[in-house]
């Protein structure tokens, strides 16, 4: 196994996630180094096809060593600065591609369960706290987000979304009012996510929210990249 330098920032994303790709490029540029050594954009399938060694001790201490496919580099716990897991697609390995639909569904569920445990073990080095069934974090229905927003006094709606507010750590991008920014921060905290998106209709009413922002709004990619660099720096310092 060739020695690899610490990948400060690891983003796990689906192949069509342009927001993840743009953020990875922005991180690399901002860090002023070659992409390979500052940020690692890992396709979800490469993680699914990885070589895994994940343990949990009797006192709950987790340890993980994974070599994503094609197994040329590894991610051990002490190499990870920060991980942003953005994938929402079920991971399937080629071995299961030829199996039955039930086999594929089982494999995807098992892999998601492993990813979640790995990410939980990284503690505050993940952007978003995973759930047991969702490594990307809170996968709540729009109805739940609206209910949580309504409980905080916000107006809600099922009209089409026309605006996005992004929370990236301490920064809030796109909020029209302080109340919007506060609401977005509160919901992000409830979802245990440092990068969070609130979608609003044309009248500023909450339509939905989520922990894997599309990163299509002005300044969203820069804000996400800045967050990742700050977290990675903290992780390294720790």
């Amino acid at each position, binding site marked *: 196994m060739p020695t690899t330098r610490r990948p400060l920032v690891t983003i796990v994303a689906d192949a069509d996630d342009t927001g993840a790709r743009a953020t990875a490029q922005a991180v690399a540029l901002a860090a002023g180094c070659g992409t390979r050594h500052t940020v690692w954009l890992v396709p979800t399938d490469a993680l699914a096809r990885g070589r895994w060694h*994940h343990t949990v001790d009797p006192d709950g201490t987790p340890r993980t060593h994974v070599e994503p496919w094609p197994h040329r580099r590894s991610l051990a716990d002490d190499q990870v600065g920060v991980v942003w897991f953005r994938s929402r697609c079920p991971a399937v390995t080629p071995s299961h591609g030829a199996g039955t639909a039930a086999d594929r569904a089982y494999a995807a*569920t098992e892999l998601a369960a*492993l990813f979640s445990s790995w990410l939980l073990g990284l503690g505050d080095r993940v952007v978003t706290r995973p759930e047991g069934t969702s490594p990307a974090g809170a996968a709540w229905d729009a109805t739940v987000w609206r209910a949580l927003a309504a409980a905080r006094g916000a107006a809600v709606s099922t009209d089409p979304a026309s605006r996005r507010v992004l929370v990236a750590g301490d920064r809030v991008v796109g909020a029209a009012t302080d109340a919007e920014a506060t609401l977005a921060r509160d919901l992000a905290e409830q979802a245990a996510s440092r990068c969070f998106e609130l979608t609003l209709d044309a009248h500023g009413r909450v339509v939905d929210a989520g922990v894997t922002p599309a990163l299509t709004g002005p300044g969203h990619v820069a804000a996400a990249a800045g967050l990742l660099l700050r977290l990675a720096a903290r992780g390294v310092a720790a």
Partner: protein
Amino acid sequence: MICFHGYGDDPALARAVAAAERAGVHHVVVDQQQLTGVEFELADDGTHGQVRLPGRRVALTDLTGCYARPLAPLPSPDAATAAREAELAGRMVAWLDAAPITVLNRPRAMHSNGSKPYQAQLIAAAGFAVPRTLVTTDPDAVRAFVAEVGPVVFKSVSGVRSVVRVLDEAAAERLEQVRHLPTQFQARVPGVDVRVHVVGERCFATRIESPAVDYRYAERDGLTAELTACELSDELAERCVRLAAALGLVLAGIDLKLAPEGHATCFEVNPMPGYSFFEAHTGQPISEAIVQHLADVPALV
């Protein structure tokens, strides 16, 4: 008024409904097996709306609690019916997650059980030992694990139900298969199985004596499982209550292994426990406790 939701013939749900009837608690049952003529209307805010049942209409704001065991909608040969029932199920789950009432348990609180090693980390953080666990794609790592910890069992990583099996010689011959999918192995922990049902702050413990590796499937393997109600020490009972609360669960089925000297190892916390099996064998009033909790406890937001 309290609500019950799930399959009407699910023993756990049916026992709780019967307990509500015995106690004279006003209730409504949204039976996933009897959805003809049932409507579930939910406002944009996710909390207001109503349930329409044949000959009956209940405002959601009149409900103070819900015991929910939502299962997959019944298959229907009629696509329109299947779509309608799937939509109703989705709305119901969203409401259960959002409603400002006591829910046993909110669907979003049940997710920790979707990953055993994930949940093990949370269980340990709540003060319980957990079995030594390895999830790997490397057969050699499994062999090294066995050499280090002794006998091991293997089971699913996720919440998909699987029969716990000992890694015996026959299974060891198939170890190469782990290269295709990460597989979970755990050190076997000696002791007696104890299932603890937590309902709010109450605990009901059942001791299970069985020669089977997985007592749930003892009969299938030609073996027996003897269930007896038992008492926990105050300290252990409190720890169980704290564990359930830490996972956001009002109702939980906690699987413990008690060593002869009393040390407890926790394997899993089931957020939708099939308590009826244990209640039927021991006479513990778990269904009564569920109804009491929903009917008496002030609403939790």
